């Protein structure tokens, strides 16, 4: 396992609420949710850099391209 470093993280009430809801829904600790978010963000960013597209598809197969900043 890689060495871990600590940082302080300040969130607004709505951000903290969202984090707590996600943690509960995904059966994860808040730290694990943030770690997952970072992994996803990095993965999406790298794939977009390679020229790939991020697309969401609903059940009716309607597709919407998502722009990630």
């Amino acid at each position: 396992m890689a060495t871990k470093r600590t940082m302080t993280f300040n969130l607004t009430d709505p951000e903290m609420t969202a984090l707590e809801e996600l943690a509960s829904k995904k059966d994860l600790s808040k730290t694990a949710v943030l770690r997952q978010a970072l992994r996803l963000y990095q993965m999406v960013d790298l794939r977009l850099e390679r020229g790939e597209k991020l697309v969401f598809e609903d059940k009716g197969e309607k597709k919407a391209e998502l722009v990630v900043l």
Partner: protein
Amino acid sequence: MSQSTVNILRRADDQEVVATLRDGIKPEDLAAIEREWGPYRAKIKQELVRLGIDKRTWPQSLHWDWSKKGPELKLLESSGFIIEFEGATQGIMLTKTASYVSRLEGGKPLVYIDYLESAPWNWNVQELQRKGEFRGVGSVLFYVAVLQSEQEGFRGRVGLHALPQAESFYAGKECRMTKLGLDANKQNLPYYELSRKEAQEHLSDGGEK
């Protein structure tokens, strides 16, 4: 990078040997593994061709090339594990932690086994009447994935797409995974998952069969 010890079984004398499990594998390690394994793959392929064996029965990972899988390891979500014994790489596994979520348990996170392979000299190739040198490499690596899932806070959940020749291994008593059908988005390969409950059973008996 860290390392620990694991047991694998040597077929020649049916004895367990203590091997080394290493994590933190880097792209350059994959290139080295391919240099180590490539000639054995080539030899097996040569023999299959020489005997005119039907391609449909060839080992389904025969065409894999680990040197091409290096870029995957640059992602935060990716991890690589290898088992070494007497200076040789006996098996390797690459996992991902963010690209896939559980289908059995409502989108909860899991460890996805992207690739898992035993060294070519460990393969049983029935058509060549060839038995592998070491047994249990796949089981140990699978157990490592369940353990990784537990350590990540994913409750041991694991998912993977299986090569058809490996289905009996993943569905059988060694892994006890649940088949969730064929995946049209992944070359129509069967998708398997280990639920939280099955994972806890797997962990409590130490991956023993």
